[in-house]
């Protein structure tokens, strides 16, 4: 058993499942948004902001946002452990990724919920 402290699920299986499930959610969200854009002939500000005013849409968006954060974290953590052999460099990279992702998720929540 290779102990690893910084992977998201703290175990390979959970990381792997997080990666798959979040990918499905992100795919569904992308399809939905693209479909919406394609099927809405005239996209006005009212229509667009109306779409994001609904609670369902907000929950869906929040879910997609969290999935994006988790997906990106697992992916970048994996890449950094593949290619960055110097512990210091890897640590700084992972810390930077974590901070940036947290900032984006927090900011995204503010945007979606209009707090």
């Amino acid at each position, binding site marked *: 058993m290779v*102990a690893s402290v910084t992977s998201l699920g703290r175990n390979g*299986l959970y990381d792997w499942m997080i990666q798959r499930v979040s990918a499905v959610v992100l795919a569904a969200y992308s399809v939905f948004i693209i479909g919406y854009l394609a099927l809405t002939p005239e996209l006005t500000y009212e229509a667009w902001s109306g779409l994001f005013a609904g609670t369902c849409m907000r929950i869906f968006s929040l879910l997609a946002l969290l999935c994006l954060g988790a997906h990106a974290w697992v992916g970048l953590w994996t890449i950094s*452990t593949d290619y960055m052999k110097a512990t210091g460099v890897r640590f700084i990279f992972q810390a930077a990724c974590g901070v940036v992702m947290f900032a984006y998720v927090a900011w995204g929540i503010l945007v979606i919920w209009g707090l």
Partner: protein
Amino acid sequence: MLVSIYRYNPEKDQTPFMEDINIDIPEGKDLMVLDVLHLLKEKDSSVAYRRSCREGVCGSDGLNMNGKNGLACITPLSDVVKKDKLVIRPLPGLPVIRDLVVDMSMFYKQYEKIKPFLINDTPAPAIERLQSPEDREKLDGLYECILCACCSTACPSFWWNPDKFVGPSGLLQAYRFLADSRDTAQDERLADLDDPFSVFRCRGIMNCVSVCPKGLNPTKAIGHIRNMLMQRST
């Protein structure tokens, strides 16, 4: 035919280099790459490589030939030679001891990690532990591995993390024991494979499948292990 061979003798050479040697190939015969190495050794006896059975059973002459891993003894020239040129390198990703001879300790360490032996804590029967033909069949495509390391040294995930990722060869063997009806340590075995590296570094690109000289499929075995891990945890 022009043979370009990787040379490195740490006692003499500062750095590895490629040496080009012209070899006369007898007409009308499809030699194996190993035969070419013998012809080469006749010309220059300092060339070092491993070999033993010369018929694809022992697994000692795994090499990289024109960019693809395989066993030199069962790889005919007609399969690999392009434009009358053959480039021979050691298996990639492992430390080179000399010329084509690599240090396989990392590879064996991973093999050791998966406990490649039957574990059974029930009292031993008088004669032997029996297995139904159906259960025995589950080991087909697994037990045939000769540990030549062609697959693991073709796997990028093993190149980057040879100390943590078990690699296709080791995982094929891990599944060989997970699938054995006579083994009682399934849960312990799975618990040892649950971390982010041992199994889950496999990215499923199937380099291992495309090089295995025995035609085995480590990617499929890895998929089975993943399913077993999933069943155990969900």
